[in-house]
């Protein structure tokens, strides 16, 4: 499998993509947080930021961004936080699970049920 990866690899090491950062304080960014661009890319921006801004003209989940960029979710979070901090994107977070237990509230589940039944 390595050979396939090597063939598709680029010379960009991840620490050069993040400028040496490996984590972000933004912990609320879930895999299914929806990202929406608030502006267009500008010249000189790093290519990942350009791609994110282009992809997220419609909402897109973090996990989809990660898959499209072929970058680990942790790295994508750092890139997204850069854009979030400068107001270039907004994030729509999934509902927080109620504090007491992990079960979602029944209203959400009812909507999910209707949605699934309408499929």
């Amino acid at each position, binding site marked *: 499998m390595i050979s396939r990866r090597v063939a598709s690899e680029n010379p960009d090491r991840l620490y050069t993509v993040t400028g040496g950062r490996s984590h972000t304080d933004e912990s609320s960014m*879930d895999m299914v947080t929806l990202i929406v661009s608030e502006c267009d890319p500008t010249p000189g921006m790093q290519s990942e930021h350009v791609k994110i801004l282009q992809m997220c003209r419609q909402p*897109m989940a973090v996990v989809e961004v990660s898959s*499209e960029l072929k970058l680990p979710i942790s790295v994508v979070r750092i890139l997204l936080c850069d854009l979030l901090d400068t107001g270039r994107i907004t994030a729509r977070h999934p509902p927080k699970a109620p504090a007491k237990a992990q079960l979602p509230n029944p209203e*959400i589940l009812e909507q999910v*049920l209707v949605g699934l039944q309408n499929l």
Partner: protein
Amino acid sequence: MDFRTSDPPVRTPLRNTMTTGLKIVVVGGFGVGKTTMVRSVSEIRPLSTEETMTQAGLGIDDASGVQTKSTTTVAFDFGRISLNDQMVLYLFGAPGQERFWFLWDRLFSGTLGAVVLVDVRRLADSWYAIDRLEHHGMPFIVARNNFDEPAHPLEKIREALDLSDDVPLIDCDARQRDSSKAVLIALVNHLHALSSARGVTR
């Protein structure tokens, strides 16, 4: 500015009104039909976030009969269902065995619930997943994926898996969209029942 790379391929964009992403995880051993199930209900071709295992993967490719490689790429794939104008459901197909524990924390936080997909010929592949779900108290249902006429009554499976009575166990054919849909509905019904019960017990 002219970006010579035209817009990257955006697959089936979501509606702009979407505000809420939800997730459900489908776990099961290799070749049990996770990807098939995700594909049968997803509105996008399942995407994958590649997770690669080096060594420790002996026998990993049982299904394809390739066992000599020391490195195996595991696609933890996901599909998407737009439920309505605001809510989008992401379905994650995750390998259930112990050696993929590294996926779990990331996947399961904030997940509505899980579907354990089992293949009767490789029932043991699901044990770790069920143990782990029980251990974490993650609500789940079990679906038996049937490619052929099932050879065992469901009660035998429940017995063999030592499932408690309140865990729903159903039959499905992951290739069939309606069948996969029914599995998801069964899970959500189960969650709803638990969630309502919580209101009562509190």
